């Protein structure tokens, strides 16, 4: 290419971009990120476990067998058995969909509520914005843990109530974030140009504003997934989530902690899996954040 062409910005075929664009070349970029690859592999593994786990259990996960109580890992029970003789491997596999599924469900709900409330408040402005944001303020002044425990206290323990409690405690943060992203997007030149051209708000919302806001919110949600998995397990550990005899990793930890001196293997599998899922979620989130960060656009 001659110098003239470059200086004159004369018509030329697209050159390798100075600014990697976000939509079309996202996957190659993400897959080039080592941490993201590791996180993705871990995530696939855990997801497969959550989906296929209940079908692969070698033993009935909730069936006690007192004759085989507290057996160490061996040929028939690969990860040993617990105090009532239930197979740990079966319970870990069976619990996967409760731990991971619950966290993903909560996050999806929070993401959806936050996105709708936040973009609505940001776009509508005026009294709608005022009411929604004061509501957000109220929720945000209450500590999340306290609010969740209060909700469970009123509704009673159980997986469904736990999900509800976590959603109620955490949606406000995402709504606030979505609103501020929307307010920024509203003032973007491409949005102003669309408004002046007479494009309706609906098309501006879905064409210009929502894709960017949703993507940024999704990055935050992925970063929050690890914490959410830990929260679901934590509440179940406290006995506020999944109820016996059903298996869930946090609940399994709670049940086995009394036997730690004589049967430490009981803690190993659920703890490792909780650790692995938090790690996977954080690796994915970091990868997304690194790739989509403004650095890529400068």
């Amino acid at each position, binding site marked *: 290419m001659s110098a003239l062409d470059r*200086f004159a*910005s004369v018509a*030329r075929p*697209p050159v390798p971009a100075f600014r990697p664009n976000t*939509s079309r070349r996202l996957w190659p970029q993400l897959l080039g990120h080592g941490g993201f690859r590791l996180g993705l592999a871990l995530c696939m593994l855990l997801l497969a476990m959550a989906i296929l786990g209940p079908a692969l259990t070698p033993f009935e996960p909730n069936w006690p067998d007192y004759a085989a109580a507290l057996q160490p890992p061996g040929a028939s029970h690969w990860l040993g058995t617990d105090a009532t003789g239930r197979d740990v491997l079966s319970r870990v596999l069976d619990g996967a969909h409760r731990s991971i599924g619950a966290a993903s469900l909560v996050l999806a709900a929070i993401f959806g509520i936050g996105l709708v409330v936040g973009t609505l408040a940001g776009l509508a402005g005026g009294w709608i914005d005022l009411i929604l944001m004061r509501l957000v303020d109220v929720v945000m002044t209450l500590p999340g843990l306290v609010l969740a425990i209060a909700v469970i206290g009123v509704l009673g323990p159980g997986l469904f109530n736990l999900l509800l409690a976590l959603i109620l405690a955490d949606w406000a943060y995402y709504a606030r974030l979505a609103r501020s992203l929307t307010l920024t997007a509203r003032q973007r030149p491409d949005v102003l140009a669309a408004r002046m051209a*007479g494009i309706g708000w609906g098309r501006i919302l879905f064409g210009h504003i929502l894709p*960017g806001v949703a993507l940024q919110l999704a990055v935050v949600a992925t970063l929050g997934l690890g914490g959410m998995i830990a929260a679901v397990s934590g509440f179940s550990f406290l006995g506020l989530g999944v109820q016996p005899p059903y298996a869930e990793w946090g609940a399994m930890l709670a049940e086995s902690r009394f036997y730690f001196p004589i049967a430490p293997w009981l803690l190993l599998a659920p703890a490792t899996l909780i650790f692995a899922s938090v790690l996977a979620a954080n690796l994915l989130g970091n990868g997304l954040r690194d790739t989509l960060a403004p650095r890529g*656009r400068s």
Partner: protein
Amino acid sequence: MSDVLLACKRLTIGYGAGPTVVQGIDLTIRAGECLALVGPSGSGKTTIARAILGLLPPGAQTSGSLTFQGQDVLTLDEAALRQLRGRAIGYVAQDPYQACDPLRTVQTHVSAAWAVHGERPAAGVVCERLAQAGIADAARAIDQYPHQWSGGMLQRASIAAATAHAPALLVADEPTSALDTDRADAVLATLKASGSAVLLISHDLGLVLRHADRIALCDEGRILETGTPQALSISSNRYVQNLFSAVGVPSRKGREHQGEICLSGRGLGMRYGGHDAISDCDVSVYAGEILGITGPSGCGKSTLLRLLGGLERPYAGTLKRSVALNRPGSIMPVFQDPVVSLNSRWAIWRSLTEPLTARHLPRLSQKQRRDRAAAALEQVGLGAVDPESLPGQLSSGQCQRISVARATIGQPAIILADEPTSALDTIARQQVLNLLSGAALDGTAIVLVSHDQHMLNQFADRVLVMQDGRLAVRGPFSQRAAVARPF
């Protein structure tokens, strides 16, 4: 030669596996001269400046030599470089406000030039230096904070700080791009008056021609040609000829516009949080004219455009639109930053034809839209650009031409252009101005906001000057129009 201050020989700089940013350049700066390094963004200018200051980022690979006063800067260690910086080589940053800590007074910033070398300026020296740099009433202003100073004053204070130890060389990286044109000239005059040799880095050839002793044109990491402005202006290099012919502004003097008033505002006012952004503005826009609006940063130019464009309702006054302006899309904008003014996720054909998809217009198929986009690209001289490309794959000049195409595709009555050329290099600037001029010939009124008064005086039919939210003084061309058409 004994008076050679700085000499680069086959200097090459690259970053890791990335592209080689500077490719074997030869450059000399003599004592006391002002050498301007001119080129488009991404041509390696800033990298050269950083190499001279020994401020290349870690991981940069260099070869060749860069000799300053007999020592090779590339091989010096950090301690030796610290002795060099400030004492022998001064640096003036692009944006004086960003270069200053808003919580500290101007005095602190200027005295820092001594403090970093463990010295304390003698009483009154800071004041004296500021006065030399052209700051009136320096003794009082010195205790103010950066935001209380204008950009031009603050940049002159930066120059006073950079020349504190009378360095042999001053490196100024786009020292005026954050300033208005008249202030830019004053700042460059101060820079040259310091007595040091100056390496002036700029993308604005017009500005440089008024000040530099010699000019080095660079592109893609190479120096294309070096010489005095006179020598370069008669260069046989076709590229250099092209560049020089683009310095001027397409002149429209003598053109009489016969249009009707299509938009008129009387007593317009706008208020944000108790502060009047603009007040009592009378503006009228005639069909087919180019109306320039100029004024210092923060004077309310952009607010006025938002009111004219209907993006906000005026707090005071009335805005009357002609019948032609009743349909949506009859007023279209062109913005300052070309790249973000197009949706970064959309192929350019989609952004370009978006105005054709407005509610009141007949529905077009995707194929029709692509065809219209291809035709529009042809019109702005971008026929070879793939309509499927994304804004990030194009240069800023190309993006700005697409923005103009988007503004004109729905045949608007008025185009509001807010600093449409300030982010562009010389040639791209002229191309965009030509497009706007063409649109005006087709009967579209252009309201052009810019802080470049040289450009407006040549390009616009009328110029309004804005000051502190009021349309204060009228520029030379406005008088002609005002007499011809009292409103």
